[in-house]
C-alpha cells in the first residue's frame, strides 16, 4: 500500500467492532493525511459507516486506537473531538433558521457577536447560500439543505470533515456537480475530508486515496488510478469498474510467473506476484480490464484465437463478449473509430493484452460469505 501523501493527522490502529455476531470492523488500520480527500468505499454492510462513526465518536470500538496528534481519542465523546460530520439525512435542526443551524457549533464554543455573525455569513457564502440565513430548513430544496449541512460542519474548521454518503439523496445530475464542488471545496479550505460512499464512481472522481472495504476489513488502500489499474484482490477488481477475472493457480517456471487456469497459462509480472504475497501453487486470479484487451485479425501472429459471441452497442464504444478456445469468455471494449469496432457475432478474431495489464489478484471471493452488517 502506498504511503500517505502528507503527514498523518489521524492514525487508526487495529480497530475492531462487533455488533452481536457481526464483525463490523476487523482489525482496521489506516492513516488519514493532512489536506487529503479520503474515501471509504464498499458495499453496504462492509463496515465503512461504522468506521466513520468510530471517527466521529458515536461508536466505541471494542479494541484498537484512534490517534490524533499522538493521543488516543477512541473513547473521547463526540462533543470533545475536533471533527465534524455531515450526515446522510443532513440532520438540520428543524426549529432553527439556516443561520442558527450554521452558528450552533460556534455558540457551543461561546463565540460571540460580531465574530459569530461574520463566520456564519462566511460559511454560507462559501456554499453559495448567502441570502438564505433566515430561512427554515423545510423551506429549502434538497440541494440547498445539503449545502447548509456542509456549511454547518465546516464553520468550526474541524481537523477532519466526515461525510456520510453525502450525495446519496441527490438526483444524478446534481450529484455529478456536487462531486466536483466538494473536491474544489476541500482543496480551498485545506481540511481533510473523509467520505463514506458505496458509489465507486464517486470515490474515483473525488478521492485522493480510497480504502476498499469488505466484511469489516480494508482490502486495499490506494489512489484511484492504482485501485483501478492494479487491484490487489479479486473483490476489488470486480467492485471497481468492470474486470475480466480468470481464476487459477500460480506457477513459477523458467518462463517466469504464470497463472494456470483450465489448461492454459497466462504470463504474469513476477514482481507483482511476489508483492501480493503469492507463492507457487497458490490460488489467484488475473484481472484484465475490458479496454486493455486488443483485437487483431484472425491471421495475425499475436494473442489467442477467439470468437465474438455478443455485441453491445454503447455509442462511444462497443462491448464484445468473446469466447476463447476451451471456454473462457472475455469482455472487450473497443472505442469507436479504433480497429475492430465493427465486429458482429460469429466473427473470428485474435485477442491480446500486454502482460502488465493482466494483473494478478488475490482470490478472496471463495470464502464463505458472512452475514451482512
Amino acid at each position, binding site marked *: 500500500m502506498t504511503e500517505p501523501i502528507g503527514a498523518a493527522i489521524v492514525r487508526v490502529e487495529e480497530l475492531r467492532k462487533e455488533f452481536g455476531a457481526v464483525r463490523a470492523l476487523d482489525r482496521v488500520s489506516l492513516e488519514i493525511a493532512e489536506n487529503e480527500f479520503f474515501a471509504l468505499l464498499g458495499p453496504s454492510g462492509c463496515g465503512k459507516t461504522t468506521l466513520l462513526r468510530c471517527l*466521529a465518536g458515536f461508536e466505541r470500538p471494542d479494541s484498537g486506537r484512534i490517534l490524533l496528534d499522538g493521543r488516543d481519542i477512541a473513547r473521547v465523546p*463526540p462533543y470533545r473531538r475536533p471533527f465534524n*460530520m455531515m450526515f446522510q439525512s443532513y*440532520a438540520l*435542526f428543524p426549529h432553527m433558521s439556516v443561520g442558527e443551524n450554521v452558528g*450552533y*457549533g460556534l455558540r*457551543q464554543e461561546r463565540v460571540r457577536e460580531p465574530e459569530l455573525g461574520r463566520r456564519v455569513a462566511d460559511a454560507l457564502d462559501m456554499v453559495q447560500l448567502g441570502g438564505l440565513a433566515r430561512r427554515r430548513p423545510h423551506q429549502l430544496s434538497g440541494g440547498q439543505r445539503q449545502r447548509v449541512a456542509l456549511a454547518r*460542519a465546516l464553520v468550526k474548521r474541524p481537523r477532519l470533515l466526515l461525510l456520510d454518503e453525502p450525495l446519496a439523496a441527490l438526483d444524478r445530475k446534481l450529484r455529478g456537480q456536487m462531486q466536483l464542488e466538494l473536491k474544489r471545496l476541500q482543496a480551498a479550505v485545506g481540511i481533510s475530508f473523509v467520505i463514506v460512499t458505496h458509489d465507486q464512481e464517486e470515490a474515483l472522481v473525488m478521492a485522493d486515496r480510497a480504502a476498499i472495504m469488505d466484511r469489516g476489513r480494508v482490502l486495499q488502500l490506494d489512489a484511484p488510478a492504482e485501485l483501478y489499474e492494479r487491484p490487489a484482490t479479486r473483490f476489488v477488481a470486480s467492485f471497481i469498474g468492470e474486470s475480466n477475472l480468470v481464476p487459477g493457480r500460480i506457477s513459477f517456471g523458467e518462463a517466469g510467473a504464470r497463472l494456470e487456469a483450465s489448461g492454459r497459462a497466462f504470463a504474469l509480472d513476477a514482481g507483482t506476484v511476489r508483492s501480493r504475497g503469492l507463492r507457487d501453487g497458490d490460488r489467484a486470479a488475473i484481472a484484465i480490464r475490458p479496454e486493455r484487451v486488443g483485437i487483431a485479425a484472425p491471421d495475425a501472429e499475436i494473442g489467442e484465437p477467439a470468437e465474438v459471441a455478443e455485441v453491445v452497442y454503447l455509442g462511444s464504444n462497443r462491448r464484445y463478449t468473446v469466447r476463447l478456445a476451451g471456454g473462457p469468455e472475455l469482455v472487450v471494449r473497443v472505442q469507436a473509430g479504433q480497429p475492430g469496432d465493427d465486429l458482429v457475432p460469429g466473427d473470428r478474431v485474435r485477442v491480446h493484452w500486454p502482460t502488465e495489464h493482466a494483473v494478478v489478484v488475490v482470490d478472496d471471493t471463495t470464502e464463505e460469505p458472512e452475514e451482512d452488517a
Partner: protein
Amino acid sequence: MRDRSLARGWLAAHFGLVLLFLYAPVAVLAVLSFNASGQPFAWGGFSLRWYESLVGNATIQQAVVATVVVGIVSTLVATVIGTLLAIGLERTTRSSLLDAGVFVPMIIPDIVLAIALLSFYNLVFTGIMGLGLGLWSVILSHVVFSIAFVAAIVRTRLRHFDASIEEASMDLGATPVRTFFGVTLPVIAPGVIAGALIAFTLSIDEFVIAFFTAGTAVTFPIRIYSMIRFGVTPEINAIATIVVAVSIVLVFVSQRVGREEP
C-alpha cells in the same frame, strides 16, 4: 350531480345531529346560566347575576384556587415524568407489555383507581406515616393518571423524531445535557405542551379520584357536588359554563400546538 348533493345533504344532517347530541345539554346549561329568573322553565331575561353571586362566594373561590393549584402542580410534575418516560420507552424498549403497563392508568375506570389510591394512601401515608390526606394527595393521584396521558402524547411526537439531529448536536460540540435542552426538547415541545394541556384539563374537572383522596380538602368539582345535593342552583349552571369554556379553550389550544408541521 343530484346524487352527490343528496349525499352531501344527508352527511350534513348527520353531522348536525351528532353536534346536537353532543352539545345540546351544554348549550341549555349555558343558556340557563344567563337566565335572570333562576327557574329552568321560565326565561326571566338575560342576566349575569349568577356569575356575580359566584364572585361573592368565598367557599367557591377557595375551591377554585385549590383546583388551580392541584392542576398546575400535578401538570408540571406529570409533564416532566411523562416526557422522560416517553423518551425512555421510545429509545430503549420494544416491549409491548411495558407499553401497556404505562398506558393502563389512562383506561382504568376512575372509580377503581380512586379506591386503589385511597386504600394505598390510607395504608402508607395515614397508617404508617401518620399524615392526613389533603390537596397534596389529590396532586399525587392526578399525577398518576396524567403521566400516562403525557407519555402517550409525547410518544406520538417522538415517532417522527430524527435521532441524527441529536448526534449532529453532539458532533457540533454540545454535551448531552445541552443537546437535550437545545435540540430534543424544542423539537418535541409541541407534543409536551399538548400533553401538559390535556393533563391540566383532566385535572381541573376531575371529581371521583379527588373526592376519594382529598381528605378534608375541597376542590372545585367537590364543591359543586356538595352544592348539587341541595338541588341544581343557578350558580352551578354558571360554574359549569365557565368550566366548559375553559376546557374547550385548553383542548383547542392543545390541538393547535400539537398539530404536525408540514
